[in-house]
């Protein structure tokens, strides 16, 4: 502060100065007072106080934003996003169970049995309804998504009618295992077409949309916290500068070496600023980790589970609809490659490539980039394998890859039996895969659920840690601010008292 230079001829005792003859007495008195030491002292003190209060304001508001961001991610948006992913899974499972029941025909004891399949159908239907209700509340006000939810609701009714008709027709016709009645097949074709063009895509898109909302919220929150950080830093620096200015002024005017309370206040302000910045940065880090390693990963893996549910049902569709077997086989491969991608022109190549992935893990085939034709191990599971960071994740992922490979091995047996004309054998293998107790698909689902649990745990932990970092500041900030203000008062009061 340079104010001291221009008034250096006035000591603490020379509190007034002669006015210039032409100026009005009123103005003269005003100017005279503002140029006095107590006035300057008051002014500098006010600047310090305002800066400290400003620091409090900007820090409190930014901490508030950060807390809100954590809560939106942790309590609302994140969980709702998971719920919409569940809708796809439930719908895919419904269609899978219908196909299985048709395939079983009159043999009600194949696999885990017809009753079991129907019970799972009912359970999935209930889950789909529940997820739809949740989605409906989530998408209120968004016309595009609301429309989608409504369309799925309507479509479910139509689907159930078709599925029930297919089942009744097949029962009436007393169709033997693997030989679905023609009229029943027509109804099922219509049902599964509706499911795959009308219901599943919209359900999947709803899930993607929730992810998009989570992402947008997260980015927005990060942006506002980043701007808040700059404010806190700037205001904090201004407060420190003002305090140093006051200190220097006192030193020059009052010829004192140090003003201890002000010195402590300066250090305290710097500490408070640094502390808030540190807390915000670290909580932001935890939040990003919760989103990326927790929520995003869990959602991607849930999708890997949902698509795989539809994929394994393609085995039943392949067997029960010989006219469209080629299409169902190709679609099986396409869905499989969404789950875990390796370059493969047909299923035989795919089985082999997946076997290699499971055997080589944690190494990933093709990831070196040495072969320009080989983009590496991709898809939902492949991407996870590339990003594996959590402790215990590697083992869990290895389990998922092994069970996925086992599922493909069963698929190979199934298609071989079918191509050899052994329909009964193929149906047997299929119902074994779908067995809800010890089937290959159940094993895959269990392994996947374990991995998803890890990520959900990381999600909860990230949110908790982020919260824990911010929590002490709810009292630390106001208490610290009051303390700083008190210190400023303590430092300035004796000097001001000299002018009473």
């Amino acid at each position, binding site marked *: 502060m340079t104010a001291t230079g221009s008034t250096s001829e006035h000591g603490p005792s020379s509190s007034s100065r002669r006015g210039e003859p032409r100026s009005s007495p009123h103005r003269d008195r005003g100017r005279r007072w503002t140029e006095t030491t107590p006035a300057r002292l008051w002014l500098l003190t006010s600047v310090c106080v305002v800066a400290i209060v400003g620091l409090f304001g900007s820090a409190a508001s930014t901490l508030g934003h950060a807390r809100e961001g954590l809560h939106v991610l942790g309590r609302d948006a994140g969980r709702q996003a998971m719920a919409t992913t569940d809708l796809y899974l439930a719908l895919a499972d419904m269609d899978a169970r219908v196909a299985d029941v048709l395939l079983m025909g009159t043999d009600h004891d194949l696999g885990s049995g017809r009753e079991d399949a129907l019970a799972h159908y009912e359970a999935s239907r209930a889950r789909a309804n529940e997820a739809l209700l949740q989605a409906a509340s989530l998408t209120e006000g968004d016309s595009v998504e609301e429309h989608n939810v409504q369309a799925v609701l309507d479509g479910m009714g139509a689907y159930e009618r078709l599925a029930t008709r297919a089942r009744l027709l097949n029962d009436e016709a007393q169709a033997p295992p693997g030989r679905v009645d023609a009229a029943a097949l027509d109804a099922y074709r219509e049902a599964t077409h509706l499911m795959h063009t009308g219901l599943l895509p919209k359900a999947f898109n709803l899930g993607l949309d929730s992810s998009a909302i989570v992402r947008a919220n997260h980015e927005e929150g990060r942006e506002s916290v980043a701007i808040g950080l700059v404010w806190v830093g700037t205001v904090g620096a201004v407060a420190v500068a003002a305090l140093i200015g006051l200190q220097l002024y006192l030193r020059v005017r009052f010829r004192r070496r140090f003003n201890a309370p002000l010195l402590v206040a300066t250090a305290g302000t710097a500490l408070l600023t640094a502390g808030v910045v540190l807390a915000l940065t670290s909580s932001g880090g935890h939040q990003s980790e919760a989103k990326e390693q927790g929520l995003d990963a869990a959602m991607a893996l849930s999708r890997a589970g949902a698509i795989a549910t539809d994929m394994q049902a393609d085995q039943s569709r392949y067997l029960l609809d010989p006219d469209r077997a080629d299409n169902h086989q190709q679609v099986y491969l396409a869905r499989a490659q969404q789950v875990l991608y390796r370059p493969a*022109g047909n299923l035989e190549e795919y089985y082999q490539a997946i076997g290699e992935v499971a055997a080589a893990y944690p190494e990933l085939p093709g990831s070196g980039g040495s072969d320009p034709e080989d983009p590496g191990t991709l898809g939902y599971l492949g991407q996870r394998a590339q990003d594996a960071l959590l402790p215990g994740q590697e083992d869990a992922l290895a389990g998922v890859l092994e069970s996925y490979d086992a599922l493909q091995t069963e698929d190979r047996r199934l298609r071989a039996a079918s191509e050899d004309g052994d329909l009964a054998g193929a149906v047997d293998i299929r119902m074994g895969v779908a067995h809800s107790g010890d089937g290959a698909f159940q094993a895959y689902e269990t392994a996947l659920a374990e991995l998803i649990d890890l990520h959900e745990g990381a999600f909860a932990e990230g949110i908790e840690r982020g919260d824990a970092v911010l929590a002490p500041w709810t009292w630390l900030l106001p208490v610290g601010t009051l303390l700083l203000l008190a210190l400023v008062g303590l430092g300035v009061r004796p000097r001001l008292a000299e002018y009473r």
Partner: protein
Amino acid sequence: MRFRHRRTAAVAALAAVAVLGLPACSAVLGEEESVLDAASLTIGVKTDQPGLGLEGADGDITGFDVDVALSIAEKLGFSEEEVELTGITSAEREDRLVNGEVDMVVATYSITPARKTEVTFAGPYYVAKQDVLVRAENTDVQGVRDLEGLRVCQGEGSNSAARITEGLGIDVRKTEAPSYSACVDALREGDVDAVSTDNLILAGYLAENPDAFRFVNNPFTDEKYGVGLPYGDVRACEAVNKAISEMYQDGTAEELLNTWFGETGLDVVTRVPQFEGCDST
């Protein structure tokens, strides 16, 4: 690509942080650049694909893909003058997206896991399926298995015949022509027995000459036609997905499918496809 909003706030903030030496990194500041922020949008479309993207004698490019592209651009908030269409070949789609010459590609661009490592895909806006086109009088071919031993033409650089021979293990006599247009000519002349590729592409040829050919209508693969965007432009991807949903909801998609393929006997799906998702998995 010009930018409407300079991210001055972010830059100033960054400068302030740097000056103050605060522990914050640039990644925390602001959203990433997106083609959505540009004042104009350059879209790559095909110019040699009847029904999808075909350049006429007057230089105008028309087709289903073109109309889809324009509809998306409109829903993203770009006026007609702000959209520029440019011809693009299959081979140059990735490169021209990566080097920023085009902001968006709508050109029978199938979404594949390998391509997703270089390009962010919105959509698909339509799921085409590989099917078979034969001469109208040929009633023997009812499915892809009936092609056994027949002459099947594929366009150069295409992989469609391999999906029959390797994918399905059906033994066909593969012939190759410089393009699918040439394949269709060969089919008309009787030099080949069938042409097999995406049904939308076949429908485009059929629409030009509806009496000469017949669709087998027994599709056997899914080809997801996506909207190619610069890698990592998640914001644009999500916005395009929303635009595609709207396109199906307000009936635009159905209208366009009928306009371009209504006469061909193709079973079109008029419901919104399942999107791929905008992250890089």
